């Protein structure tokens, strides 16, 4: 049978279970696009390749499956780079396919030629330049295997135009073997180490679980819950670990880190045994590293051996996939009672509560997030931009289900929210998907509004519009003497912009209009945008100043809601 390289690739994608591709065509991938309709692959035409990569990323985070994006050579490929880097830093399974100039032109600086395998070398788990049409099946099999197993990550496949076009005599093999002698992720944890961990947990008086995205990747939320409940261990999460443990659970103490709950950070500073699961001690999580968890022995469970001991010293390392490791660990865990420790945490929580969203009179961004939680019954998938909007979305919504919070952690990519929400909605069409975004973030990828319309993707968008690049402004307010350089932001009329794309929209300026607007958005069939004109200079609190330890939390000033905050009066509680 004659098959073209493009057909072989599509056949491979179908066999990998791919149902949707986010892409943008161009010269080098034309022979692929030409055969695309022959296969049961939904193609979603984004408006910029960065949107394709973020959409594949959002799709992957929401579904746990490998997301696929596609771009042409040269600028198409380079436009994917931010999205690939984002997926790499957050361990998101993704396969990015790029076109390349035809083989005879490679290395000749041909039109739209760029060395994308070279460029993406440090931001992919692996990448391929396909020079033999017949090798496509094994490359596709390996790419999906590498992307989706072990510590997931993006894999890029670069395919020259003439490879897509080449017709060869070919029968797609029934099974394609993976031949990767250098790739064998450890799955089971070492039994002796697991035993050691169980002993440490039994001996601890103040144990604390710190759960990261690894728990979600491994699908280990049930095992985590069993561990926490059996041994009565309180749980805090990283930003990306949100959803790995129900936030309304009695043992949940929220998020740690720079904008984590003061009581969560205090818990880390007080625990005598930190059980770190599927997380990598990022500097935004640890604060000043040598003052991190000063009283604790540390158990670190992670799939990636290179994460063990990278940033902090670890007492009991366990390398393995989280779910099987926790299953084994749970067999050795005995019921315990840490009432005294939990009471201590409750006391922290009473003394250092979160910012009250219903405080004051103005339209607070926290209030908006709070109401989105109420109106969606906590059942929505929330995708965020990066900055203040992201932190408020993390702090003031209660995430009880895995993979319900989709946010750019490691790279902190502004513009992630809208395309990621788009990908999440495509992957989970029956879920309500809200994009909580800032006016700055949204404008970085706002063109994807057109994609929502053309491909009928009913994402609801809440813009927390403060007319600033808010997080940067907050840093300028707190650490640069309020010199707001390059942060005041002219914004278009987002409702009119939405209207221009035939998307329904509303502007909300008053607190009492928030719920009716949200209800209207929920009832609307299709995408909907609400432009919330929030307090311009509201800050994200609590905050651990950069370079400080988690014990030095800046908490919100209780009274002054409006206007500038007198930073000299900011309480820095040394806890």
């Amino acid at each position, binding site marked *: 049978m004659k098959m073209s390289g493009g057909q072989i690739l599509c056949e491979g994608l179908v066999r990998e279970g791919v149902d949707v591709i986010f892409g943008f065509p161009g010269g080098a991938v034309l022979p692929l696009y030409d055969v695309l309709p022959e296969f049961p692959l939904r193609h979603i035409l984004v408006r910029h390749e960065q949107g394709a990569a973020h959409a594949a990323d959002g799709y992957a985070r929401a579904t746990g499956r490998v997301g696929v994006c596609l771009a042409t050579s040269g600028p198409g490929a380079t436009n994917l780079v931010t999205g690939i880097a984002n997926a790499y830093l957050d361990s998101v399974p993704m396969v990015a396919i790029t076109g390349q100039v035809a083989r005879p032109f490679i290395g000749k600086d041909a039109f739209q030629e760029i060395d994308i*395998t*070279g460029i993406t*070398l*440090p931001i992919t*788990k*692996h990448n391929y*330049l396909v020079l033999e049409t017949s090798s496509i099946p094994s490359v596709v099999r390996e790419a999906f295997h*590498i992307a989706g197993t072990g510590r997931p990550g993006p894999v890029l496949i670069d395919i020259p135009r003439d490879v897509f076009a080449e017709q060869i005599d070919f029968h797609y093999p029934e099974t394609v073997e993976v031949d*990767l*002698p*250098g*790739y064998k992720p450890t799955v089971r944890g070492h039994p002796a180490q697991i035993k050691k961990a169980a002993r440490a947990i039994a001996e601890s008086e103040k144990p604390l679980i710190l759960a990261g995205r690894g728990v979600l990747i491994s699908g280990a939320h049930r095992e985590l819950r069993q561990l926490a409940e059996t041994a009565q261990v309180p749980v805090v999460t990283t930003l990306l670990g949100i959803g790995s443990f129900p936030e309304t659970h009695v043992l949940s103490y929220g998020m740690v880190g720079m904008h984590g709950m003061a009581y969560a950070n205090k818990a880390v500073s007080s625990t005598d045994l930190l059980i770190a699961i599927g997380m990598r001690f990022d500097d935004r999580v640890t604060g000043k590293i040598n003052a991190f968890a000063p009283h604790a022995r540390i158990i670190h469970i992670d799939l*990636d*051996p*290179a994460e063990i*001991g*990278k940033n902090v010293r670890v007492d009991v390392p366990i390398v393995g996939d989280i779910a099987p490791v926790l299953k084994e660990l749970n067999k050795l865990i005995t019921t315990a009672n840490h009432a005294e420790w939990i009471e201590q945490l409750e006391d922290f929580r009473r003394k250092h509560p979160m910012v009250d969203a219903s405080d004051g009179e103005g339209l607070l961004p926290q209030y908006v997030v709070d109401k989105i939680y109420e109106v969606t019954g906590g059942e929505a998938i929330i995708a965020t931009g990066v900055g203040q909007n992201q932190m408020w979305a993390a702090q003031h919504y209660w995430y009880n289900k895995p993979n319900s919070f989709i946010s750019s952690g490691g790279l902190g990519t502004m513009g992630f929210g809208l395309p990621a929400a788009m990908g999440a909605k495509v992957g989970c069409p029956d879920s309500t998907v809200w994009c909580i975004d800032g006016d700055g973030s949204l404008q970085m990828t706002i063109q994807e509004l057109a994609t929502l319309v053309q491909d009928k993707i009913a994402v609801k968008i809440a813009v927390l519009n403060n007319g600033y690049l808010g997080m940067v402004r907050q840093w300028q307010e707190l650490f640069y003497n309020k010199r707001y350089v390059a942060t005041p932001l002219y914004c278009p009329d987002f409702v009119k912009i939405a209207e221009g794309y035939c998307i329904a929209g509303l502007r909300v300026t008053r607190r009492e209009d928030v719920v009716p607007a949200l209800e209207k958005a929920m009832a609307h069939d299709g995408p909907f945008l609400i432009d919330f004109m929030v307090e311009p200079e509201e800050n994200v609190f609590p905050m651990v100043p950069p370079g400080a330890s988690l014990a030095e939390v800046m908490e919100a000033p209780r009274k002054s809601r409006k206007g500038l905050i007198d930073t000299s009066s900011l309480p820095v509680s040394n806890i």
Partner: protein
Amino acid sequence: MDDMKHTLVALVQDHPGVLNRMVSLFRRRGFNIDSIAVGHSEIPDMSRVTIVVNGSGAIVEQVRKQLDKIIDVVKVADITDDNITARELALIKVKATSAIRREIIEIVDIFRAHIVDVGQDSVTIQITGDEDKIESLLNLVRGFGIMEISRTGRIAMPRGNVGSTPLAEKTPEKAKRLKAG
């Protein structure tokens, strides 16, 4: 503080760009390599890479783990503490008028090195050995005037009946040590 030279040996698949992947990793993670030597191994389509890294045990362990994550790197081991044979080859071109050639040849003989090329006013010495031996020879001939040095960097393998490094998990010495402590 406890920085020392570590010898890592990696077995890698002969895929395009594999060396680029390794070197790029060193650069972006700020690891310093003293030398890197690559050549075919006894296994078809596999190369063996010997890397000398200067750093503390923790840093080098991080280097090893990061290298191990590269898909084309089949296996990598730190064989510093093993009983190993380590060699480097150097070519050294020294200024040598016929009047002092004799003197240079004497030194070369003591080091069991070889003169591999003689020019009008120069000789080229080939020496193999560990770095110390090469450095000693260099120090002795430096006075004559060194015109050019080319060194291969260290290559190494464990002594005795140990299988293919680093595929053979543990050398007997390492196994013994692990058992002991």
